């Protein structure tokens, strides 16, 4: 995994000098002679399937995966090919017009494991190739249960797609199918349906070579050949759910997503994982404002094609009962529900009543870079201490980072905290409140009670404004509560631990009256200081990029889907 993380995006690779000319169907193409090995990164000979892929010629395949070692056991990528004919002196035989004569090979080859050679001709749509695909599919379908109406993979199933494109419309198989075990409990997050398995071994190779947990293997022989976890072992590493993505059919299913929603209903939104500082790129599958699953999105500079189970399943807080859905204010002992314009009308004059130094601001690494920018601007205008706290967990040395906040570097590029430090608990502010110097506190996305500011201290404040997405002890005592939006519910950017600034898009609507923090921060800032100049997140980002040195020259559009590497000023 370390290698994967260090892998550079294709655009960054220096082109290998040596190119090989081959012919794919009727197209002459130049292909690099070698490709980096997916695991070691060392150059290995380019295969036929890589050459075809590079020029957009589809070769159907099951067991081949660009990020995994080649196994060559599904036989789906069989193609016919030809090589320059040689005479007995190993000199090329020429045609009448002087071109080398190409001789079609008598037997096909699997495109995933056959290296290219100069002058090679690959026939991906010859009658022989098409017939072979049909036959391979027919064999694969012999024991396949054909329960597509039940199967979760339906709609994104390679077996389904290739049967439709390359298979036969009717089965000639009249014998009884072999019934393999169903609903096999492979691990805490994985359920296996062995009947559906086409024995491609992608999951085995992933667990062994990428996740480093050699837990899976085939048992039995012939028709009874079956995928299983090794006896006495549970398939429970932190990367098991990637095998569900890898599985070309519906054999490995996620217990979390199993029988929850059909794939074709899901709207997929490009997003980021906010569970740690790695910032894995994700696709969020939603339907009618409900999040059903997260899947990794390929970004070779960050997470390759994988993500950890912890981050993948860490989305349910978005729809928790505990979400704040109303704007409220404390009136004596009673919490009153307000609307946003009432709240902003009250809160701004009250904030402005305090002298610089009497007010303090606490942000969080859960805020987007834009929100940090706005909050920092507000703090600078008002004058006061600014703090943010770190949150760390155990790193698994693969994708899960010890920094459990997605945007700690976003705080750093804005020089957010007054002290320049992001420590686990409060120092100056808690002391300031104790001394009575700090009379007002504005907190966003942080449960300060977990960072050294006790409820008693909070209650001693003259004004406590808290914005969060969940109810916390702090929101219970706050004078004003501003419900914020989760990153699924707004657009913005995070800067990951390696200093890559990446965009996330809006997948669902925020519940109730909850609003993206940057919207209300913008309004507060605008009303309090007159700063303005944008109304969209694009405008806000572009404004921020002009003012923050680390982001100079960037625009919202230039971030693209995969983000941009930036310099983190004081990261070490």
């Amino acid at each position, binding site marked *: 995994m370390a290698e994967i993380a260090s892998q550079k995006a294709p655009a960054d690779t220096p082109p290998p000098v040596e190119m090989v000319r081959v012919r794919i169907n009727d197209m002459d193409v130049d292909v690099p002679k070698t490709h980096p090995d997916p695991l070691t990164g060392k150059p290995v000979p380019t295969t036929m399937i890589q050459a075809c892929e590079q020029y957009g010629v589809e070769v159907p395949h099951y067991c081949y995966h660009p990020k995994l070692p080649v196994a060559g056991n599904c036989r789906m990528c069989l193609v016919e090919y030809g090589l320059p004919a040689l005479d007995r002196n190993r000199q090329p035989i020429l045609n009448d017009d002087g071109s080398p004569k190409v001789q079609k090979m008598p037997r096909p080859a699997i495109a995933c494991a056959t290296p290219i050679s100069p002058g090679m001709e690959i026939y991906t749509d010859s009658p022989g190739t098409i017939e072979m695909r049909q036959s391979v599919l027919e064999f694969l379908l012999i024991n396949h249960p054909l*329960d597509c109406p039940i199967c979760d993979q339906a709609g994104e199933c390679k077996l389904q797609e290739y049967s439709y494109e390359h298979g036969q419309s009717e089965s000639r198989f009249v014998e009884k199918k*072999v019934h393999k075990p169903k*609903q096999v409990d492979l691990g805490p997050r994985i*359920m296996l349906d062995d009947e559906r398995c086409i024995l491609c071994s992608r999951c085995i190779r992933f667990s062994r070579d990428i996740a480093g947990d050699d837990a899976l293997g085939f048992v039995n022989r012939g028709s009874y050949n079956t995928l299983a976890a090794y006896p006495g072992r549970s398939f429970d590493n932190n990367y098991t759910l990637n095998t569900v993505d890898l599985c070309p059919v519906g054999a490995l299913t996620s217990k979390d997503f199993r*029988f929850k929603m059909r794939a074709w209903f899901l709207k997929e939104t490009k997003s980021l994982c906010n569970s740690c500082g790695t910032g894995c790129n994700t696709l969020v599958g939603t339907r009618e404002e409900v999040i059903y699953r997260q899947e990794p999105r390929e970004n070779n500079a960050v997470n390759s094609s994988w993500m950890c189970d912890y981050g993948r399943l860490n989305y349910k807080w978005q729809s928790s009962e505990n979400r704040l859905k109303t704007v409220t204010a404390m009136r004596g002992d009673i919490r009153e529900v307000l609307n946003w314009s009432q709240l902003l009308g009250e809160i701004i004059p009250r904030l402005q009543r305090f002298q610089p130094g009497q007010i303090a601001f606490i942000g969080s690494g859960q805020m987007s870079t834009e929100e940090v920018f706005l909050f920092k601007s507000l703090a600078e205008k008002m004058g006061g201490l600014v703090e943010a706290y770190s949150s760390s967990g155990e790193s698994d040395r693969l994708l899960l980072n010890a920094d459990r906040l997605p945007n700690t570097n976003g705080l750093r590029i804005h020089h957010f905290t007054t002290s320049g430090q992001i420590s686990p608990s409060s120092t100056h502010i808690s002391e300031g409140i104790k001394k009575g110097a700090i009379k007002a506190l504005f907190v966003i996305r942080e449960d300060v009670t977990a960072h050294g500011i006790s409820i008693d201290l909070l209650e001693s404040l003259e004004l406590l404004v808290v914005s969060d997405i969940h109810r916390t002890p702090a929101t219970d005592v706050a004078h004003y509560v501003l419900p914020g939006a989760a990153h699924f519910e707004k657009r913005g950017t995070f800067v990951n631990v390696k200093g890559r600034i990446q965009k996330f898009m809006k997948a669902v609507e925020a519940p109730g009256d909850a609003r993206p923090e940057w919207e209300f921060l913008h309004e507060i800032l605008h009303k309090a200081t007159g700063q303005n100049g944008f109304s969209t997140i694009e405008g806000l980002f572009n404004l921020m990029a002009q003012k923050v040195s680390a982001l100079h020259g960037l625009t919202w559009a230039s971030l693209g889907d995969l983000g941009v590497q930036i310099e983190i000023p004081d990261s070490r």
Partner: protein
Amino acid sequence: MIVERKELTLLEKTYLPGIAQGIRITTKHFIDTVTGRRKVTMQYPEEKWTVPDGYRGAPYLVKDQEGRTKCVSCQLCEFICPPKAIKITPPGPSVNSALGGVEKCPEDFEINMLRCIFCGMCQEVCPEEAIFLMRDYSLTGESREEMIYHKDKLLTLGGTHQDAIQKWKKKESEAQAQAPFH
């Protein structure tokens, strides 16, 4: 094309032959109807109509001969339904052994009969022959909620389908017949 307007005769200009002819026709119809010689209207609630074969009435769910719910919650009908009258709640990951070997069956199946346009696409798209447009054409209720038919009601109204394939039974017997696994 120009059609020449026919010149009326003097008699016709008095309108009298026309009026007489009209009265003759209406009188004939009047007498035929009053004497019951011509009967068109059906006195609906008392007299009922024979629903023809192939009639597209209300869609209901069916069970197979052994009482298993045929629907496997594939949600294709929900997908195809033009007025979005169908809403299926999938079962989720828990395994329910009470279903008699059925791997998947909907947690709930709602058809909003107020939205349904009786087009029959759900029946056409269903890969399991689990939903059929039956003969009911007169659906009534006292509230909108009552007109949303849930799974149990749909299954009761749908009854049993004489299923030629009996997929679950076949799978079960095949699995029992094969050599023991492992």
